[in-house]
């Protein structure tokens, strides 16, 4: 006698219910992103639409202005965009090489016992709340810069860069490390079998093969750096006007502009802070599009 093949309604229903449960959960993330995007853009674009109830502001003046004086109705953020970009670039330029070399060390070179020290340290670094980074920056980095700089204060572009550099390390290290680990051993064996040294193998075969993963780590690092708020706020100096002229100049990144004033702003001032958020959000979207491109490229291979 064969086994009973009758349709099991109960089982089928269970499968279906589970399916919808998963679907529902997945939509939470999608709806959140859509809601946040809509909300920020809706509020942030108001001032540039003629006839806005709280007053209007020129988009050009907003994007090219070098002064942020809400009391005088001046809302220029170009110097903040520049500050954000310079700080992020600096953090990437310093942090990425350190991060990649650390990842290479952990994944390819370090003896086991050193690996068991470095890995938890990196994971802990990722878990430290950003305000603690800020305190560290304020307590150690800022005073040190004050010794070097001719400026009266240590809060500066350099301080922001150094704090962000440390903050992006865990992202760059972990993602680069997993990209390196994903490189098949057959590549390493092929290279070593030809009499190439370990270092030659790492730099000529392993890292190129892990390239797209590493780039993904760099892009996520950029995202982290440009979006970081709390730690940056404590060490940036946050001037109300002026492009940074040296690494010792204080800066006011986009994020801190919002965080510092949102609690008491109202009317047009508040909407201009939302508009700052729109600019920041746009940067994040661009970064994510780049990231998508990179990771999709690696899947095709």
């Amino acid at each position: 006698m064969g086994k009973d093949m009758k349709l099991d309604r109960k089982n089928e229903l269970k499968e279906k219910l589970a399916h919808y449960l998963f679907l529902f959960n997945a939509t939470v993330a999608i709806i959140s992103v859509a809601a946040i995007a809509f909300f920020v853009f809706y509020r942030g674009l108001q001032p540039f639409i003629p006839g806005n109830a709280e007053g209007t502001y020129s988009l050009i003046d907003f994007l090219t202005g070098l002064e942020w004086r809400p009391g005088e109705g001046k809302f220029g953020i170009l110097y903040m965009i520049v500050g954000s970009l310079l700080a992020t670039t600096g953090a990437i330029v310093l942090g990425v090489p350190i991060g990649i070399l650390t990842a290479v060390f952990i994944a390819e070179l370090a003896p086991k016992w050193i690996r068991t020290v470095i890995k938890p340290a990196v994971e802990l670094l990722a878990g430290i709340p950003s305000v603690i980074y800020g305190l560290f920056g304020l307590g150690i980095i800022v005073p040190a810069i004050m010794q070097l700089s001719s400026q009266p204060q240590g809060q500066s572009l350099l301080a922001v860069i150094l704090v962000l550099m440390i903050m992006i390390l865990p992202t760059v290290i972990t993602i680069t490390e997993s990209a390196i680990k994903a490189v098949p051993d057959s590549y390493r064996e092929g290279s070593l079998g030809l009499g190439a040294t370990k270092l030659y193998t790492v730099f000529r075969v392993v890292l190129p093969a892990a390239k797209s993963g590493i780039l993904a780590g760099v892009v996520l690092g950029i995202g982290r750096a440009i979006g970081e708020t709390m730690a940056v706020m404590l060490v940036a100096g946050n001037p109300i006007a002026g492009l940074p002229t040296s690494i010792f100049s204080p800066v006011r990144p986009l994020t801190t502009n919002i965080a510092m004033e949102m609690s008491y702003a109202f009317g047009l001032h508040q909407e201009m802070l939302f508009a700052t958020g729109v600019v920041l959000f746009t940067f994040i979207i661009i970064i994510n599009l780049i990231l998508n491109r990179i990771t999709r490229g690696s899947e095709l291979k």
Partner: protein
Amino acid sequence: MVNKFSIKNLDMYYGDFQALINVNMEILDKEITALIGPSGCGKSTFLRTLNRMNDLIEGVRVEGEILLDGENIYKDIDVTKLRTRIGMVFQKPNPFPMSVYDNVAYGPRAHGIKKKAELDEIVEKSLRRAAIWDEVKDRIKKNALSLSGGQQQRICIARALAVDPEVLLMDEPTSALDPISTLKVEDLAEELKKDITIIIVTHNMQQAARISDKTAFFLNGELIEFDETDIIFSVPKDKRTEDYITGRFG
């Protein structure tokens, strides 16, 4: 004929596990030696002790002697130099994710050759020696991964030949290939034998019989029998060898 390799009382351990037990073997220059035996018998492990590829695995210990032209390769020698003398071709074709040209030029570049004319010459010569020049000469800048499996394997052979090795270790080089590609690789091995020593691990009994001069039968980490291929496949001395080649186990 001279000895290329002399293996004396070779024991090898992975941690506590002894993978090779007292192996003694003389491998002659410019011959093809086939290593056969069931999975896990130690034949690949043995092959990888010959270019110290096992060094990469943690906890590996080697005792006894392996002499290459009379020099102990486990004494103070430069492993990278050893591996330029002893090339290796792996089970699965493993070209690097770069162009055919860059693959073949990889070894010479790793050893400091930078001049383009010199590299061009080495690349062409190696591809010709690996009998794949005609198939790839128009696609030399294409990614090697876009070639078929059989072509990839011959690219890997060309890549190994580019550093001008004296010995070529082949670890089941045709197990991932179709029958036609397999024949091409076998023909190639016989051609290369004129200049270099070849040691090949294979699961394919016919392959061992077809191309090798000597055959070594391994079982549970021991070298059971090692003799002329004709003898191994017609009148093996050991009962276990006979059982294996007649397909009674393994």
